[in-house]
């Protein structure tokens, strides 16, 4: 629970650092230091929490070992994010202290979403996560694409907030409580129309936020238009947090009505996988391809919403960890490139072998090739859904779609290793120093480690 307070306080400190520190380097160092503090707090939380759920703040929040582990994984990935991208974040605009502060405020929302126990906190968490992201999306003020991304993200986000609130209110009308665990009683007896309508509204709202089809239309433009330094944050950390909230709500409150909403989730999974993977094939820009691939990955994360068992909890930890690490790696390489098209990657392996190797492993993991974390992530997701009686054709469809994803991920690898180019692929003034390479290698090593010992994240 300390982690929520810590991230909010660190955000305030970072915001004030803009006044007291004059050099960009000082602010960067402070942000890196703050992310390390956050990680330490997360580890302390893991050691304190047991399997018993403890309530905080009059039952508004609840923590147990699972939420603490998820917080630790997210805190670790935010630390890597700050390490890998702090240089680029400072370059986005003049207000670098504010960017770091906004990232930490968004993280406060993330940690609320992983351990809320009341719909109140669900709403606040989603808003605290979203509002800083609207600003981050538009932080490159001179770029029309960034402005467009910001406006589009804002309008879509505010629109889906309306649905979220309507859903919460209708559920409250049906049960008379905002408490997630007390609503579980709803399974007994015939559910009222208001409750079913409320669940539908909540699926729509959370589908919007998690960029599941058919509510994904904003995703490619927003991820493509935002400054590349902030896209990995939106695509990985924020998305995993939204899914943690989605899964917690549907497992704790609506499990009794599973027969009613399972069919909708199946339809959303099939649509998301189909649209995400098939559209990604036709993209010219790697950044836009990754935006579509993040929609496709959301399809796999939705399997955890369907399956109402323990495996899905392990699955979200493992899938979340490997997805976040892989996204960080590939974007850390992408941001150093001059040209974001597939041809821009030509001959990268000769000029920058470390970057090319890190990108290749990240893409292997996103595609779900064995010996990388992504393979076991997908395995746990599908296994959990199968044990909960998901129709077998959906699982086969998901595997087929993963096979399609191999095609567009491997186009990048092909460009890097088997094509040649006369000029340098990387940006001339990009900082590719030793600490950056070391962090990238650590990131890659962790992805491989997750592929060999997947239990490392579930036990710790």
């Amino acid at each position, binding site marked *: 629970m300390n982690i929520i307070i810590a991230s909010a306080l660190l955000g305030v400190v970072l915001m004030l650092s803009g006044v007291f520190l004059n050099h960009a380097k000082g602010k960067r160092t402070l942000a890196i230091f703050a992310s390390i503090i956050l990680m330490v707090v997360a580890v302390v939380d893991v050691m304190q929490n047991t399997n018993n759920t403890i309530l905080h703040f009059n039952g508004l929040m609840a923590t147990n070992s699972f939420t603490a582990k998820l917080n630790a994984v997210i805190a670790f990935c935010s630390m890597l994010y700050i390490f890998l991208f702090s240089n680029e974040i400072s370059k986005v605009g003049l207000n670098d202290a504010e960017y770091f502060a906004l990232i930490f405020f968004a993280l406060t929302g993330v940690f609320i979403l992983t351990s809320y126990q009341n719909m*109140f906190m669900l*709403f*606040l968490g989603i*808003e605290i996560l979203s*509002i800083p992201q*609207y*600003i981050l999306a*538009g932080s490159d*003020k001179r770029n*029309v*694409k960034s*402005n*467009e991304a*910001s*406006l*589009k993200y*804002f*309008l879509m986000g*505010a*629109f889906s*907030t*309306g649905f979220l*609130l*309507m859903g919460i*209110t*209708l559920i*409250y*009308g049906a049960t*008379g409580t*905002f408490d997630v665990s007390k609503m579980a009683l709803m399974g007994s007896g015939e559910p009222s129309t*208001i409750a079913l309508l409320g669940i539908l509204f909540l699926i729509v709202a959370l589908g919007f936020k998690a960029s599941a089809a058919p509510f994904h239309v904003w995703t490619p*433009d927003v991820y493509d238009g935002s400054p590349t330094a902030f896209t990995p944050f939106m695509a990985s950390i924020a998305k995993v947090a939204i899914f943690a909230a989605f899964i917690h709500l549907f497992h704790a409150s609506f499990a009794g009505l599973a027969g009613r909403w399972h069919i909708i989730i199946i339809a959303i999974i099939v649509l998301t996988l189909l649209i995400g993977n098939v559209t990604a094939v036709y993209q010219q820009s790697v950044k836009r391809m990754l935006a579509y691939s993040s929609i496709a990955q959301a399809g796999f994360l939705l399997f955890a919403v369907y399956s109402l068992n323990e495996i899905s909890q392990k699955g979200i930890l493992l899938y979340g960890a490997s997805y976040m690490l892989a996204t960080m790696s590939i974007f850390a390489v992408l941001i150093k490139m001059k040209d974001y098209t597939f041809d821009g990657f030509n001959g990268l392996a000769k000029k920058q072998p470390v970057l090319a190797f890190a990108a290749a492993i990240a893409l292997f993991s996103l595609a779900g090739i064995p010996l990388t974390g992504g393979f076991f992530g997908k395995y746990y997701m599908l296994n959990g859904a199968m044990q909960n009686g998901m129709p077998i054709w959906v699982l086969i469809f998901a595997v087929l779609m993963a096979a399609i994803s191999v095609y567009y991920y491997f186009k990048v690898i092909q460009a890097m290793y088997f094509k040649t180019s006369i000029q340098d692929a990387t940006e001339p003034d990009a900082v590719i120093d030793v600490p950056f390479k070391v962090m990238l290698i650590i990131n890659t090593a962790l992805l491989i480690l997750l592929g060999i010992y997947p239990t490392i994240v579930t036990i710790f």
Partner: protein
Amino acid sequence: MPIQYYLYLSLALFCTGIIGALMRRNAIVILMCIELMLNAVNLLLVAFSNHFNDASAQIFVFFIMVVAAAEVSIGLAIIVLMYRRVHSIDINILNRLKN
């Protein structure tokens, strides 16, 4: 008055908001429609609060109002930023600029 009346009224307001947000092209009008959606929810929450004799829903209303205010302040800032760039707040212009 039965609770259903409030439910129908606020659902009608909510649908007005959705239709407005989807049909209108002016960013500020869309923002107003989204506010209408949130206020429909507020109305329903207060009605349910009275129905259940439970104050927590009324507290929720205050939080929604605060968050909506924060959201609008960000939204208007983004719209001003947009206006400075393209001298319009029509969201169709955005799609035209992309090509």
